[in-house]
């Protein structure tokens, strides 16, 4: 345990309103603390420079999954366990359920939250590619009110995101427009369970006769942020997934992503496997 624990504050506001008031009163001083599965790892390694946290774990307003005809909306404190057990997520957003099932082990899934995962902003996170592929939007609230933002615009650079110092991520919603689509989620990690991803593809497409429509391709671990590969999508939209299309899509993908060498893997491996995943996805559309 490397951190000097006495220096840290973790205060528990009695309500969401109190939490927002505190964030507003001292912007930048306080950060929200949800399940702790990322922050506590940093704390224990002595790599958590920020000292003052607001415990939001008990705020019921940030929990719950709400279903309407058009959308499904998840509270920011929705855990990976919550995700996996929801019937609408299972049937219409299976990639998110799969991502949740592959995040750590059960003990992590019981505490890790979608909101925490999003604002931790690791490019290797498992759920964000699925959220991108499902055109997720996120709600940011503060004492000034609330705003919805396309998740695709949230991350602007490595660990940089469009959230103000007095704002809190409160909800994530996805449009229920996935019926009839082929979903493809595959995380390639260092082992079968409890693995950080080396490459992660979340892709979805519908076919109009034999032409690709509504194509969405999201990747993790191949850039400083999780990315929707819009150029590759453009190259595929309206095309038949034949060998020629697959080749050009892979070529476009190679230009659109920028994997690196790091402690877990190599740029070459990530690039090649990303191409293979895209190919495999497109082949499943053919079948």
């Amino acid at each position, binding site marked *: 345990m490397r951190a000097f624990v006495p220096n840290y504050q973790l205060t528990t506001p009695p309500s969401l309103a109190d939490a927002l008031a505190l964030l507003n009163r001292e912007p930048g001083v306080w950060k929200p603390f949800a399940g702790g599965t990322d922050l506590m790892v940093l704390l224990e390694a002595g790599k958590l420079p920020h000292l003052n946290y607001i415990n939001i774990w008990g705020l019921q307003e940030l929990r719950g999954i709400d279903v309407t005809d058009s959308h499904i909306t998840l509270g920011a404190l929705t855990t990976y366990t919550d995700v996996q057990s929801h019937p609408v997520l299972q049937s219409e957003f299976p990639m998110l359920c799969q991502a949740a099932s592959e995040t750590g082990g059960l003990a992590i899934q019981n505490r890790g939250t979608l909101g925490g995962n999003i604002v931790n902003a690791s490019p290797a996170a498992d759920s964000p590619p699925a959220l991108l592929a499902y055109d997720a939007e996120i709600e940011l609230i503060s004492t000034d009110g609330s705003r919805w933002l396309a998740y695709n615009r949230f991350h602007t650079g490595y660990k940089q995101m469009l959230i103000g110092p007095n704002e809190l991520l409160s909800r994530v919603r996805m449009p229920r427009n996935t019926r009839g689509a082929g979903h493809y989620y595959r995380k390639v990690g260092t082992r079968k369970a409890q693995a950080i991803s080396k490459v992660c593809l979340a892709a979805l497409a519908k076919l109009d006769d034999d032409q690709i429509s509504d194509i969405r391709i999201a990747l993790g671990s191949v850039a400083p942020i999780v990315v929707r590969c819009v150029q590759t999508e453009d190259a595929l939209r309206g095309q038949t997934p034949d060998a020629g299309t697959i080749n050009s899509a892979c070529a476009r993908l190679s230009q659109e992503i920028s994997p690196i060498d790091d402690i877990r893997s190599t740029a070459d491996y990530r690039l090649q496997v990303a191409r*293979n995943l895209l190919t495999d996805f497109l082949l499943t559309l053919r079948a």
Partner: protein
Amino acid sequence: MTAHPIGKPVPRKEGRKKVTGQALYVDDLSFPDMLHGATVRSPAARGKITNISFDGDIPWDEFVIVTAKDIPGANYVALILNDQPYLADGFVNHPEEPVLLLAHKDKYLVEEARRNVRIEIEELPAVFSLADSLAKKEIIWGEDNVFKKFLVDKGNVDDAWASADLIIEGEYETGAQEQLYIENNGAIAIANPTEGVTVWGSMQCPYYVHKALVKLFGLPDEKIRIIQTETGGGFGGKEEYPSLIAGHAALLAWKSGKPVKIIYDRAEDMVATTKRHPSRTRHKTAVTKDGKLLAAEIDFVIDGGAYCTLSPVVLSRGTIHAAGPYVCPNVRIHSRAVATNVPPHGAFRGFGAPQSIFALERHMDKVAHAVGLTPEEFRRHNFIHEGETTATSQLIREPVDMDGLLTRALQLSDYHAKRERFARENEASNGGFSKKRGIGFATFMHGAGFTGSGEVYLQSVVSAEATAEGKVRILAASTEIGQGTNTIFTQIASEALGLDFESIEIVQPDTGRVPNSGPTVASRTSMVVGKLVESAVLGLKQTLVGSGLLPPEYNEPDFKKACAEYIAKFGSLKTSSTYQPPPNVHWDDEKYQGDAYGAYAWAVYVAEVSFDELTYEARVEDFVAMQEVGRVLNPVLAAGQIEGGVAQAIGFTLFENVVWKDGRMANNQMTNYIIPTPADIPPIRVFFEENPYAYGPGGAKGIGELPMDGAAPAILNAIENATGISFNQIPLMPEGLMKGMVG
């Protein structure tokens, strides 16, 4: 009460404590006024310490600070060459080398303080690879960077090349591997000049720690007392390393006058403690066109890290195992252990043999292919039998049936049918990414006990004492580290005396109480020390029968009554048994020839793998481990050893990669140093054959390290079968597999 418990799945003796959380490991202990200790380590790989400053807003006057100057005795860890200092004195030779020690009552403050000690080093050029060390890019140890070398020379290798039909060469490499016991290293010490030094700790060898602290403090034997606490895994990682951490805790306790506890966190344990020696093996093999081995020249090199520690012994075992269970009239093995500027490498299950056996069993498949034989045919042409001699000219004096083991292992793994089926299925293509499959095996042996005259040198002693209530206590320094020492010793004693399990007590290893039965290493605990347990308890029986208090045929109540009477009459009842070597074991340390080990266990391991063309991941799908082990003392414990060893070996082969950066392990977190989870392990199917070894208790041979040897080559042989590509380095990660596949 289990009559004749030998061979039965008797439940683990200390099992209840372990499943209820009541077993006490070193970090579970606490003493009044105890301080927490921390080790401040070198930031650089090699150089001169020019300055140490104590920065930050830390109340330094509250701290106990220990440097090399505070050492009462000698500043080296007594082991083989005694070149490793407890604390660096002016110079450092590897990253994370201990430089000074801190202690304070507040465990959080100690960490904050550690962060605020700055050690400045004027760096010297460092050597980080085995190849650079051999090339003498820089001389960093001794005259030539070589800790130790051996030469085994049988027959006349040089003459054989001329008459060979074929000569096949190969080079094979293995990487470092972290033991990753789930309990980190830890020690608690109480020390002062009047009473001496007592240390509690997680360890395999209390008497190694004892020997080291005697020198560190310059105190007589009886003033140093070492007590093993419940130990959460060792695998060799707690063979010699505990001497260092125990000494550190004791130095802080000595200076402060208070108990001091040092517990490493995972990051420190991984970055600073020993790992398996990396290796490079070069084979040159002469065969006839019928596939008979004529000559084998083997160059075996291991990377020992910055200090000698146990490298000579690791080198020894790797050398002796390098030529395998084959008959070959001409063998030359030339081996060296070299220095590099990384934390010293040390003992890890297998101890040199997994490295040299990996190379050999990969090479044997290569030779088979060159001669146009199957891997199976080639082995069968060359297996050693009773009456033939090994590479060290050891005559095999027991019936060895490698052919039979191979036949059964191949049957149990459905090898032939699968080989044929995979060949067909791998050809078929569905246009997309498929999974290729392959199956491969390794045949090997592992010598149990210390090499050559090692056991004689150890002079192991076990004592047994009876209590007035008729309980029998076993006093041995052999530690329970999960492998089942307590249970096996209890079974042996219970069987020998015809007493109930509950009547046997195993005394917690404490150098103040138990004699030195040698270290808990080298697969010797059941085979060598177990035999001493048997003779020690039989000594109790003989004494009682000899005294007339116990009839030769007796039951448990008779025994209890006899103990009570004997102790009332004579005060105590205690016997000791000292190691006697089996007859006809001759070993020449100079020529490195003769009877290297008293007993070998013999094995064939078969691995079935799949290779995913999309992700380039290889996965073991099924594993058969077949071995002849003398006698199975406890089937659950024995299978547990094989399963655990195979799992570690699968990790060694496909998952566990130490990433080095300037001599330091960069991935020193469990997140990034990958061992298999429950989702990654294939079914491991274990089979035993028995061929009793006359000098082992119940006929048992040692088996603890055997399972580490065979998986890596079997898996890579299977991967070659699946992909057609020959890989010769481990760990073999998907990135490496991809390079081999796509170039």
